[in-house]
């Protein structure tokens, strides 16, 4: 068949599909004149695909092929677009999907927890025995700063030099959540980035805790951290674990190709990091508006801290158990 016959025979279909495509992204408007019905589109799309294949095979002109190619591309984009995120799913995700995802990668989470908590506890003990160690981790000015933040003689606020609750909230959001994100992303450097972040943070937190406890500022310090420590520390552990899994997907892709393996790890990582984001958001809230209040009695501080630890651990251990696994 000659090109002109071919074009004139199918011109009507192409214009109808084109009209539908022009209207497709504006659902509130009435259908365009001459556009085909929604239910017709998949069939029309398959026809245009076949016509494009014919046009290419028969060596029709580049303009015609380009035109059909664009029709196909635009329809493909709409027919195969991913579903819009549904916001009510977010609650279900946090309540059950996320803890299940964490448990599904328990090996990485365990490795990550060890890389974080072992240096933390080791430094905590080591600085008690050998107080000079704190000086090899922090400079003198940094130490003085930290000491000032937890000075027991300051009555009003713990854990900060100055600043209102809201200011510190912003500070925690920007810094802590960025750290959480980065400890996942840097896992792409064959896992080393995440390991550095985990061990580094473990050493720093352990040294601060050890130093402050050693010089007798332990009271305000532990009163400050006990509230938000559960979501914050566990979030760092989870994002580090997700990062190491990402790095390992690059080193040992197993039965996948390297790119396919990275893609899979990236998808898992995205889900984990969403949960980490929520945990760190909660931690920042507690840290800014609850942990810093110096006037609460010890039983309230430590009681609430224990409660938060229990709730977070129970959520991670039990959330989403017994749900139907959907993949």
């Amino acid at each position: 068949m000659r090109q002109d016959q071919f074009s004139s025979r199918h011109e009507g279909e192409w214009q109808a599909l084109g009209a539908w495509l022009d209207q497709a992204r504006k659902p509130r408007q009435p259908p365009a004149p001459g556009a085909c019905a929604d239910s017709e589109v998949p069939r029309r799309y398959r026809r245009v695909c076949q016509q494009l294949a014919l046009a290419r095979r028969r060596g029709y002109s580049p303009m015609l092929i380009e035109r059909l190619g664009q029709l196909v591309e635009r329809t493909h984009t709409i027919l195969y677009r991913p579903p819009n995120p549904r916001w009510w799913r977010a609650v279900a995700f946090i309540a059950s999907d996320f803890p299940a995802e964490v448990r599904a990668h328990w090996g990485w989470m365990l490795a990550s927890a060890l890389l974080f908590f072992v240096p933390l506890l080791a430094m905590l003990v080591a600085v008690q025995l050998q107080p000079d160690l704190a000086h090899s981790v922090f400079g003198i000015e940094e130490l003085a700063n930290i000491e000032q933040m937890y000075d027991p003689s300051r009555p009003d606020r713990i854990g900060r030099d100055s600043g209102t609750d809201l200011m510190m909230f912003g500070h925690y959001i920007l810094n802590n959540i960025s750290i959480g994100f980065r400890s996942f992303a840097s896992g792409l450097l064959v896992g080393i980035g995440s390991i550095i972040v985990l061990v580094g943070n473990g050493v720093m937190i352990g040294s601060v805790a050890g130093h402050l406890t050693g010089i007798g500022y332990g009271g305000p310090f532990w009163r400050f951290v006990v509230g938000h420590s559960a979501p914050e520390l566990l979030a760092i552990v989870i994002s580090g674990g997700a990062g190491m899994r990402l790095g390992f997907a690059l080193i040992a892709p197993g039965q996948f190709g390297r790119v396919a393996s990275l893609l899979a790890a990236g998808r898992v990582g995205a889900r984990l990091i969403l949960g980490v984001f929520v945990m760190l958001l909660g931690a920042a809230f507690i840290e800014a508006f609850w942990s810093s209040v110096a006037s609460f009695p010890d039983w309230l501080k430590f009681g609430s801290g224990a409660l938060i630890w229990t709730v977070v651990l129970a959520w991670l251990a039990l959330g989403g158990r017994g749900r139907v696994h959907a993949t």
Partner: protein
Amino acid sequence: MLDTEALHETPEGIALRLRAAGAAPRALAWLLDAGIRLALFSFASIPISLLGESGQGLLLILLFVLLWVYPIAFELFMDGQTPGKRVLGLRVVHDNGTPVGFTASLVRNLMRTVDALPVGYAFGFLSCVIDPHARRLGDLVAGTLVVHAERLKHDLAIPSVPGFVPALTLPAEEQAVVVAYAERSAKLTEARQIELATLLPQLTQARGANAVQRLLGFANHIVGR
């Protein structure tokens, strides 16, 4: 190797052509976005700074939003286009050509952390230059591409002239070249039309404007007028 076109075969057996964008337009788009974010931050900081220290907290939250949420939100709700990409005519798509979704957008934007290492997006640039489809590391992990979004116009038609059948028989691909010439002829100057048509004396058996007429006539004959 120099062609950045990525082919994706659809379930219908059609190869979609995705025109991947290189490092230069992407860097420009990023710079534009950076400028927009800086401007937003500066404007917002004027009223917020009146609130004192609490205002600083709001500013820090705004900074967080501009750093992490801005690209994801725009890519999700503006069909894969941040304002900078929109100006440059770029769009983020999945590697199957569909608009980028939430998971992929989240991953590719978190991975900026690694692409930005060790300084000034060096890893991202290297990856962009090495990869045949100019993907940075974040795109590789997320399974996305940045493509040129604007489409070519196809409103050119073959001028209608009386048909002409040359003595020579041409194979199909060469016939397609003649038709492509006829379609583009409206965009060429007359001198250029003549220059091209004169390259085929055996086909047209003519010179000058006459050769152009015969070549257009041959194209008319090929498409069946």
